[in-house]
């Protein structure tokens, strides 16, 4: 028989003014298994806790009920208190007689009756409690950062600087991401390459960082502290171990295809570096366009290469690596506006370009060497229309959310045009102008001073007429239709999650929100974590962001990872599911229900009479299980049960209430 102690808290007058301790405490004393009951003004106070501890040893108490405020308030406090006593911290139940009794009921008699009921439920439940012990799981002191954009770069550098090993994985041939494509960054207008390239170089040179470019994640298993990640190294056809990146091969390649980096505004060869400052600064061969790989005819690059780095027989390889933590920094891509906006010509007009294409255009290293020229005829535009929120804030055709960075880079684009093309005119069509950042509003103001004309309204149609682009829309401040004849139109298009995010998140078991961004564990309090332990978020894979926010989040995620990796092992909550193998028939009903993929069927050796057999039973991975208990309700036989909330404990509560 258990020896239960019940401790009733007055919480000053918070409880005692409604629930009568003089009735409740004696009533508790009469409950089965209760050997001691007492009340006190503040149980959570030092003297209160001391009183409980003293009573435990004095009365040989082996489990306790505390009738007080919500367990969400002080359960942890009292568990900590029990650590110094003879009883296990989980031999505790809390009867919530404040938030769910004294504060919500006025009738003292009935409230006291209810409190007695609540204490009885807790007493009954605690009689079935069992000691639970937190498990320690070892931490592999190594982090994987997926995505080599500025978020991934920043996170990798921070973790590496703290002394932990990092693998930075990028699916393109070079790190750098979107930031490397930008010309200048708002609001300070410093050159994007000037501030990101040094970081890229740091990454390449950091002793704690292993760069894995042109790689993709193939599968992920394991859990916080010990993930096993299979990484596929795509075939490069260039031996990077000996290649010096001299660039000779690129010059003579006869193939010319659209450059990804310049977004189709220029051509690149089949053997190429993504861009001149690429890290690693070594080329790869694009197997889809290389003549040698396609038809077996050419081989010029191999002949040219002084070191014999070219290997047309190169194949993709998969390596499996262990990590203690993973940072997702997979970034964004721009929506395919041409497919969404037929009224803008659906991609038929060459002089309508995206903001990112404009970045390449205005960049000194870009296809026009920084001259702002129309793609169609290479003339300098006189009138430029900038359309904001293309695909953003447009639930009907595009995304319902705001892409956050466009207001500012639209202002930057206007500024750059007005600066580089004196006498030109810029019209910016907007829904709202959002400038909530340091120096942002000032920058926007300056742009207007520069001469950008802000027109509040959406562009409803763009058509080509007489060699120009007529932008037709509404000026909602004037309440009238306006038409602007432009030489070039820049669409500031919406961000959306990078292609491939679905596969990656489902491998990790991380959730995505309604717009496919990766879901943070809590929007306010755990913004850089996912609901999967050990998987963190940096940058735009979580939602649209500008560079300062991206970098901040990357450092925050890195801090979380450093905190985790600084420990050699980690305690997990012991209130998780447990399998009674004897009862388990291995039907697998629980496997599909677990949101964390924590349950697998495992083959065990068993005996059936004299016969040795192998049979499958459910097995809970204590690193992955978060203790939701959904599996237990699916287990018909009750082989799965949730420690701390066992079937038997909950049924005891039910029974006790019904007395």
């Amino acid at each position, binding site marked *: 028989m258990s020896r239960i102690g019940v401790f009733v808290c007055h919480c000053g007058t918070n409880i005692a003014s409604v629930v009568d301790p003089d009735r409740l405490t004696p009533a508790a004393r009469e409950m089965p298994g209760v050997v001691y009951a007492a009340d006190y003004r503040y149980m959570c106070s030092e003297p209160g806790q001391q009183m409980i501890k003293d009573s435990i040893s004095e009365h040989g108490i082996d489990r306790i009920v505390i009738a007080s405020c919500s367990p969400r308030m002080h359960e942890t406090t009292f568990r900590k208190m029990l650590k110094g006593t003879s009883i296990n911290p989980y031999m505790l139940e809390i009867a919530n007689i404040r938030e769910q009794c004294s504060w919500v009921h006025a009738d003292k008699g009935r409230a006291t009756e209810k409190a007695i009921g609540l204490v009885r439920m807790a007493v009954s439940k605690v009689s079935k409690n069992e000691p639970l012990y937190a498990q320690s799981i070892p931490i592999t002191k190594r982090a994987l950062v997926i995505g080599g954009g500025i978020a991934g770069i920043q996170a990798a550098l921070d973790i590496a600087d703290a002394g932990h090993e990092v693998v930075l994985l990028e699916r393109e041939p070079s790190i750098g991401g979107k930031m490397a494509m930008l010309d200048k960054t708002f609001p300070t207008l410093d050159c994007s390459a000037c501030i990101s390239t040094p970081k890229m170089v740091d990454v390449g040179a950091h002793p704690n960082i292993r760069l894995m470019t042109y790689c993709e994640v193939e599968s992920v298993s394991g859990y916080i502290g010990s993930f096993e990640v299979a990484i596929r190294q795509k075939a490069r056809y260039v031996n990077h171990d000996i290649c010096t990146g001299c660039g000779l091969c690129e010059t003579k390649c006869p193939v010319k295809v659209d450059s990804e980096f310049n977004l189709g505004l220029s051509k690149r060869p089949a053997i190429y570096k993504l861009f001149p400052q690429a890290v690693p600064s070594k080329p790869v061969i694009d197997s889809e366009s290389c003549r040698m790989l396609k038809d077996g005819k050419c081989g010029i690059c191999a002949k040219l290469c002084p070191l014999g780095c070219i290997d047309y027989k190169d194949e993709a390889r998969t390596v499996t690596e262990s990590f203690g933590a993973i940072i997702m920094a997979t970034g964004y891509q721009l929506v395919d506006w041409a497919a969404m906006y037929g009224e803008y010509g659906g991609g038929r007009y060459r002089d309508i370009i995206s903001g990112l294409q404009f970045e390449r255009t205005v960049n000194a290293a870009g296809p026009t060497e920084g001259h702002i020229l129309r793609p169609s005829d290479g003339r300098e535009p006189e009138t430029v229309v900038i359309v904001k929120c293309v695909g953003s804030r447009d639930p009907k055709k595009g995304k319902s959310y705001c892409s956050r960075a466009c207001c500012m880079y639209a202002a930057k684009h206007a500024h750059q045009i007005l600066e580089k093309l004196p006498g030109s005119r810029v019209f910016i069509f907007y829904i709202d102008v959002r400038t909530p950042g340091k120096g942002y509003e000032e920058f926007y103001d300056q742009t207007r001073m520069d001469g950008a004309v802000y027109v509040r309204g959406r562009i409803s149609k763009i058509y080509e007429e007489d060699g120009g682009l007529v932008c037709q829309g509404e000026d909602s401040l004037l309440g009238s239709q306006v038409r602007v004849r432009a030489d070039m139109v820049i669409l500031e298009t919406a961000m959306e999650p990078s292609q491939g995010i679905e596969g990656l998140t489902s491998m990790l078991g991380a959730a995505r929100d309604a717009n496919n961004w990766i879901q943070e564990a809590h929007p306010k309090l755990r913004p850089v974590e996912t609901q999967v332990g050990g998987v963190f978020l940096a940058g735009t894979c979580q939602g649209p962001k500008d560079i300062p926010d991206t970098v901040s989040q990357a450092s925050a995620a890195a801090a979380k990872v450093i905190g985790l990796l600084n420990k050699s092992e980690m305690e997990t909550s012991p209130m998780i599911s447990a399998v009674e193998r*004897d*009862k*388990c*028939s*291995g*039907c*697998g*009903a629980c496997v*599909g*229900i677990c949101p964390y993929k924590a349950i697998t*069927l495992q083959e065990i050796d068993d005996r*059936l009479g004299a*016969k040795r*057999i*192998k*049979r*499958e039973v459910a097995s809970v991975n204590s690193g992955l299980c978060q203790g939701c208990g959904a599996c237990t309700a*699916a287990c*018909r*036989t*009750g*082989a799965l049960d949730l420690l701390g909330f066992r*079937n*038997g404990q909950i*049924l*005891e509560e039910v*029974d006790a209430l019904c007395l």
Partner: protein
Amino acid sequence: MSDRQEKMRQSAEKLLRDGEVGYVIGWGATRFCDRTTPVFIDSPEGAASLVWNEHAVNSLAKYLLDDKYPDKKIGLFARGCESRAVNRMIKDNQVKRESLYLIGVPCDGKSSDRCRLCRERNPLVYDVLLWEPEANAAPADRFERVRGVEAMSPDERYRYWGGVYDRCIRCYACRNACPVCSCRECYVDMGRTGFQGKQHSRSDNQIFGVTRAFHVGDRCIECGECERACPMGLPIMGQTQKMLKEINELSGEYECGLDADSDSFLGRFDLDDKDEFM
């Protein structure tokens, strides 16, 4: 009829003689000519005792659970109902297809009320088919009985089921005959958890009845073995059929055991599921 019986005997004999299977599960004679009993033939000579007539009523699939880890394949005569049971058992990870040799025997109709809902006389999965498939007879109205109960008032329904469970003797024949009841140990045999009182009372019997329906209802292949096995003749399929009727209404056409891959209703969810708990 006897021609088919002969084919079955020959098939079993050959399988046993060739060592293809360890034993064959079929039907054999009893003291009474209008009853058969499941038999387990483990020698070629024994095949001569196999029987096939309109009284070969019992579904044989459940016996596979008695020997989940056989050294050799088990030969099983499979009609539509046995094959649907096997599909479900495979999905529930209870048997392995490769440890079975399914001898397909299209059913020519049996003298049992359990067959009234039969919609598939022909085995859906088999290794060999001993004779041509049979035309399926039009089954009884699948949910007629359920609708009958639904038409009652709540109190009438309670009286109806109370009456049923007053007569239940808790022998668990329904459970033990059911091919999808596959727990190593049934929750009712674990009194200590507290889910199921052991008293033979209306209340405990009712709870057993509803729980049983909930445990098997979304996997029920509608073979009718539970009702056939019930020594008290209780209309307990009214519970499992209700589950199926509701599932059909909530998620569209739903039938179990037609293949070995489909998840059961309670084992998955749909973001667009009806929501009435707002």
